[in-house]
């Protein structure tokens, strides 16, 4: 049985903060098929297109028929733990700090045997389900879980090393004026976050939901205006050392293409709030997040970007908006590489139109802010890097993978 996590004590100010370390990170290009699956929480292995052999570890040719056609496909993740071992010492500094560490050999029902990290509730001989996870260096590893959920299983230390669970972590939600920001505050509070800081810009302007927001348990509002560098720097100066998960909920949704924007006033606003806002957050909070990636139970864990799925493919009806979202996506990719040395994940949450005022004229399906918030919490609990919320987001992603040019024409017609 997993020992439930204790709420961490306040940090001893005489102790040095340990610097983040990473496990070995090299993978072959082919092996990144596993990284891609792990990033989205899928269990995929190579399946030979010619002889149907399931292959692990990733290879460039099928070990049975030598075919080079080895695409990654969703695979059955069930198996049996054949043998386990507990590593008590290591020459690797990352693992040395985390001893003891359990690993074992799992015989997958689909065929191959896999050396996997073991959840504490799994014992030799038992049935197991495997998950692909991203480790601190951003590479895919295999984790073996008990066949059924066990109490407090998310608190297992080896598991928590791979996730960004909000439990007992301190969260900053950057914009609490919006329905999404408020739903996010609610969801993070319910997920057991120790404190949910919620940024409020222009406090002189009342906003809907204000009273309710302030009543959510463990929510504390702070002055934060993402369009104002001084404000972001000041907020970071005061709070950055105790932010473990940053969720950027700032939004600026306006319809219209590039030509329809008369002048740059609105375009500038959308970039100020979205791209420059993200940049300001990254510059102000990024260095401290990166330094605190191994700071105990409430170590820095994630930087979350809420992105329109039209960041991936422009929707000309919201063309200028899509372009600003694309800028944010590109920045998020850079940020991912920049935060990785600290073992801090960048989670991109993609979604289509929302059930909010600025999508009033858009036909359903639309994503409710509460659904978006739940999906974000779930992605953090699983330690994902990319998540697609709702039918539109999944549809756009699927169509993009099949034929990007066709999608461009379809979105523009």
């Amino acid at each position, binding site marked *: 049985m997993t020992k439930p996590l204790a709420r961490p004590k306040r940090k001893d100010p005489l102790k040095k903060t340990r610097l983040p370390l990473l496990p070995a990170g090299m993978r072959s290009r082919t092996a990144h098929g596993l990284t891609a699956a792990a990033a989205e929480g899928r269990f995929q292995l190579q399946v030979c297109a010619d002889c149907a052999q399931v292959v692990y570890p990733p290879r460039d040719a099928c070990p049975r028929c030598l075919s080079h056609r080895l695409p990654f496909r969703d695979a059955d993740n069930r198996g049996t733990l054949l043998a386990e071992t507990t590593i008590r010492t290591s020459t690797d500094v990352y693992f040395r700090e985390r001893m003891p560490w359990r690993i074992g050999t799992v015989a997958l029902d689909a065929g191959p045997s896999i050396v996997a990290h073991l959840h504490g509730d799994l014992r030799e001989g038992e049935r197991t389900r495997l998950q692909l996870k991203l480790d601190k260096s951003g590479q895919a590893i295999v984790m073996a879980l008990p066949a059924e959920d066990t109490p407090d299983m998310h608190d297992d230390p080896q598991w928590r090393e791979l996730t960004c669970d909000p439990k007992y972590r301190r969260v900053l939600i950057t914009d609490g004026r919006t329905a999404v920001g408020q739903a996010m505050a609610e969801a993070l509070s319910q997920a057991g976050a120790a404190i949910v800081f919620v940024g409020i810009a222009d406090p002189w302007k009342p906003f809907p939901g204000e009273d309710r927001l302030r009543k959510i348990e463990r929510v504390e509002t702070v002055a934060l205006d993402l369009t*104002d560098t001084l404000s972001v720097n000041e907020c970071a100066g005061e709070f950055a050392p105790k932010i473990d998960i940053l969720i950027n909920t700032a939004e600026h949704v306006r319809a219209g293409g590039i030509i329809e924007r008369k002048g740059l006033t609105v375009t500038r606003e959308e970039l100020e709030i979205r791209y420059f806002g993200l940049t300001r957050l990254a510059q102000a909070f990024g260095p401290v997040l990166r330094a605190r990636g191994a700071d105990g139970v409430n170590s820095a864990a994630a930087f979350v970007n809420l992105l329109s799925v039209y960041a991936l493919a422009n929707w000309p009806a919201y063309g200028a908006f899509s372009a600003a979202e694309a800028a944010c996506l590109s920045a998020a990719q850079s940020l991912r590489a920049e935060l990785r040395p600290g073992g801090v994940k960048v989670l991109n949450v993609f979604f289509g139109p929302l059930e909010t005022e600025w999508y009033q004229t858009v036909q359903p399906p639309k994503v409710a802010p509460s659904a978006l918030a739940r999906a974000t919490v779930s992605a953090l609990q699983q330690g994902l890097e990319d998540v697609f919320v709702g039918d539109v987001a999944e549809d756009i992603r699927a169509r993009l993978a099949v034929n990007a040019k066709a999608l461009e024409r379809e979105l523009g017609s």
Partner: protein
Amino acid sequence: MASVKSSPADLAAFAGAIAAGEIEVVDLTHTLTPEFPTIVMPPELGQCAPFRMEEVSRYDERGPAWYWNNFSMGEHTGTHFDAPVHWISGKDLPRNSVDTIAPADFIAPAVVIDISRQSAADPDYELTVADIEAWEKEHGRIPPRRWALLRTDWSKRQGRDYVNMRDDGQHSPGPCPEAVRFLVEQRDLHGLGTETIGTDAGQAFHFNPPYPAHYYMHGKGRYGLQCLANLDRLPPVGAVVLAAPLKIRRGSGSPLRVLALVPRAGEAA
């Protein structure tokens, strides 16, 4: 007003009086900060940009021996000047933008009408013609080409109380349409200065015409000053206001430093 022949000695005496503190210089300007509220428009309309500042360098690798900033804002951000071209009623007037207004217009005497007591009791208080006539009974008829500065003590409010937004809009004092017409047509006013975010009352969209201070003032080529501070430090008559906007080509207004010269003796002119 008696005509005065001025000599270099007059100006020297004037400068000397300022240096000696016989003429006090009162700063009527709010500090430009990112937090200072701007006028609120419905979100689907264009918005006035708030004040923002980006450090270019601060004795560091971006510029080793110097500190400087880039800043951005709207023409109507912070303590600012409204030119006639700002409003549709003044759009075709000659010399109606900040770059073409006669420079002499940037220096003019001011009268201060105090409605702070009424505004404290009623945030939607409207200055009436009767208020102006009552003021004149005490201080004399308002001479031509005066700034009328409307003291409401609104500048002493902060944040939410200053803007005073409710679900039916902003609530702050200002002149009623008849009062503006009276000042412009009967008193040949130079311009109207207020402590609130606009020269008009918070609810002036619902007046007829909407935003009468903007409509009548700018329609006659006169000026506006808003977000003023320290009006409580000015005498009802006798102050001279220096309000020179930035020389922006075809600019509709500009943030600026507004100074009032006040003879320390108090009553004058």
